[in-house]
């Protein structure tokens, strides 16, 4: 029981892994003349990224960096990306396939050859779930994102041929023919964000998010003032961002077969604050302040929940989001959820979330957290936890 509690306290939710991956694939950065060369090599190096603005981190063989670390290194004139034929270079930046998967799992840097002996275990093909990976030892690894209602898979990967981290929705199962499905040892199914108390925060545009209203944590809004006759009493997912200036918000929602979700723009997390809605796309002027987007399940005799992709752009300035007081929306009350997270999806006892550390800087351990692979004592577990740590039961790093 204690072991289960300890393991759960250290686990990373699948949703957080996928959010981490999306940030790598959608990270906007600018290459300059300083990033075209690698000063630490006399070899034949030229960056794949001529000066300009790009979306998605470059592929960098041997690379394993956080987003802030990447930004700092680009600003410092590191070469943007590299390939195996350049060798592992200390003066280039980006991630390779295994560095990317290690980083989004928030673990130490493993290669495709060492995942097996590291923090993963093999699983069957039928057992593979989102945020698991398909690994070809010695060659390549991809993160399994989800599959459509028709069973077509989508992956995130850092691909050398594509020179970047990308969402791969084209390749299908044959892309991973012969790969081994693996699962990170410290992964868990919940909790799920998207409620009024724990919305999905948008911190950069363009924004894109694959998600599901089936099983969504919020089912609190049934009607919207924009279309009061329309029954939206199915489960919804709530997003928010902070508009620092007025601007045009454009939103498109695309749903899977048998799914009917609609998109709403709100000035507060309730249906009365609706300023625009549509079943697929909309464009609306928004004022400075917190802007909410609700993707809600339409009900017409029956509910039509399921998978969708939400994409959005905003041409105004973004501000910093304020922390929310946890709001009990009734969605995150799974009695089997034994981890130490509160309704906001964060560690109740930590100042920063692991995602904050991925988002905001190098994987700097939280205060008091060891920087190596040492065992640690989870806060609040006192002597029992200390004993466990001492005898090495945990044997893994707290992220």
């Amino acid at each position, binding site marked *: 029981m204690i072991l289960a509690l300890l393991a759960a306290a250290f686990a990373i939710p699948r949703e957080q892994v996928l959010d981490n991956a999306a940030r790598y694939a959608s990270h906007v950065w600018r290459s300059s003349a300083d990033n075209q060369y690698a000063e630490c090599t006399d070899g034949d190096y030229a960056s794949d990224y001529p000066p300009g603005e790009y979306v998605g981190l470059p592929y960098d063989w041997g690379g394993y960096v956080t987003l802030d670390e990447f930004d700092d290194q680009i600003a410092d004139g590191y070469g943007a990306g590299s390939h195996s034929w350049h060798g592992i270079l200390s003066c280039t930046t980006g991630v390779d396939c295994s560095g990317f998967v290690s980083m989004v799992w928030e673990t130490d840097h493993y290669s495709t050859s060492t995942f097996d002996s590291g923090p993963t275990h093999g699983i069957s093909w039928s057992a593979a779930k989102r945020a698991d990976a398909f690994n070809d030892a010695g060659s390549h690894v991809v993160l399994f994102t989800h599959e459509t209602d028709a069973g077509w898979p989508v992956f995130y990967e850092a*691909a050398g041929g594509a020179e970047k981290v990308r969402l791969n929705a084209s390749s299908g199962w044959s892309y991973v023919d012969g790969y081994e499905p693996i699962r990170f040892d410290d992964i868990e199914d919940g909790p799920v964000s998207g409620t009024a108390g724990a919305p999905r925060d948008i911190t950069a545009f363009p924004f894109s998010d694959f998600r599901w209203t089936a099983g969504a944590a919020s089912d609190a809004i049934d009607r919207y003032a924009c279309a009061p006759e329309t029954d939206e009493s199915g489960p919804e997912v709530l997003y928010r961002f902070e508009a620092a200036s007025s601007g045009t918000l454009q939103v498109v929602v695309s749903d899977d*077969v048998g799914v009917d979700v609609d998109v709403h723009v709100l000035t507060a997390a309730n249906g009365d604050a609706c300023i625009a809605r549509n079943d697929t796309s909309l464009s609306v002027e928004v004022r400075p302040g917190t802007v909410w987007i609700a993707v809600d399940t339409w009900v017409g005799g029956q509910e039509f929940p399921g998978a969708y992709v939400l994409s959005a752009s905003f041409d105004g300035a973004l501000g910093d989001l304020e922390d929310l007081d946890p709001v009990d929306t009734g969605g995150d009350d799974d009695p089997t959820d034994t981890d130490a997270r509160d309704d906001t999806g964060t560690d109740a006892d930590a100042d920063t979330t692991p995602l904050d550390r991925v988002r905001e800087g190098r994987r700097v351990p939280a205060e008091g957290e060891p920087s190596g692979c040492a065992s640690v004592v989870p806060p609040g577990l006192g002597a029992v936890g200390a004993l466990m740590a001492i005898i090495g039961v945990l044997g893994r790093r707290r992220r």
Partner: protein
Amino acid sequence: MPLWMVSIALATEPIVIGESDPDAPSLQRTEVVLSWSEVGLRPAAPESPAIGPDHFAVGPRGVSAVYDSLHKRVVVLGGASFPVAASDGLAFTAAGVLLVLDDRSRTLRAYGTNGALLDSSAYPGVVPPGGWLRVEGAVVASVDVFGNGHPLATVSANGALTAPTAPGLVPAARRVTRSGSALVVDGRTVALVEGRGGARLLGDWLVVEAMDDGAVTRSAIPLDGGETVSLPVRGRLYAPAQDIAVGPEGDLAWIDPRADGLHLVRVAP
């Protein structure tokens, strides 16, 4: 045997994969081989899979083009090869204009088959990444995994691109769903897949993949009747991101990397 195909014509009678409707018209098959000196292939290295041509497209009157990701160029069969910094998808218009999707700079570019850059257009921020480039009439769209199109631009016969003025979505005209083991299109069971596996629509073809203990089989079924086509599985030499295409005339084509070169196979009714 994890996969059985059911022909459209015989929707209630399963046919084991590899068999075809004897009354279906046979397909015309053409195959061209590009040597590895014509298109780039870098062999696998430790912790790095091989890199080769990553995308391709087929156009009108038999024209084809592949993106040589190693040399960062587009190679038009029997025509020009010209530098293109990045490609996340290729497609031809019915008029023979080649479109190149670049997700990393969110730009759509139009080329003539002689390599002339005809136009370029930044595409809207509301287009999600990872789509499949498709041209229908004058509308160029990125097709998401659900089959819905996100308009990138309209294209004229001479390759001029015009970005959309408002966000929009072009819902899929046909959709595939899986119910138990049945893959269903337009209310008809088209194929049966047991265990992990699935399908997506590509023009009027249904590409079906099934898995048996990690080994994948892949086929394409013409939705309007005809012979089921067995497709090669990626990864024997390297794994292209997008190795299947449908031309403006409905013909199916794929690239198949082999030791002697890149095989471009095209089948048409």
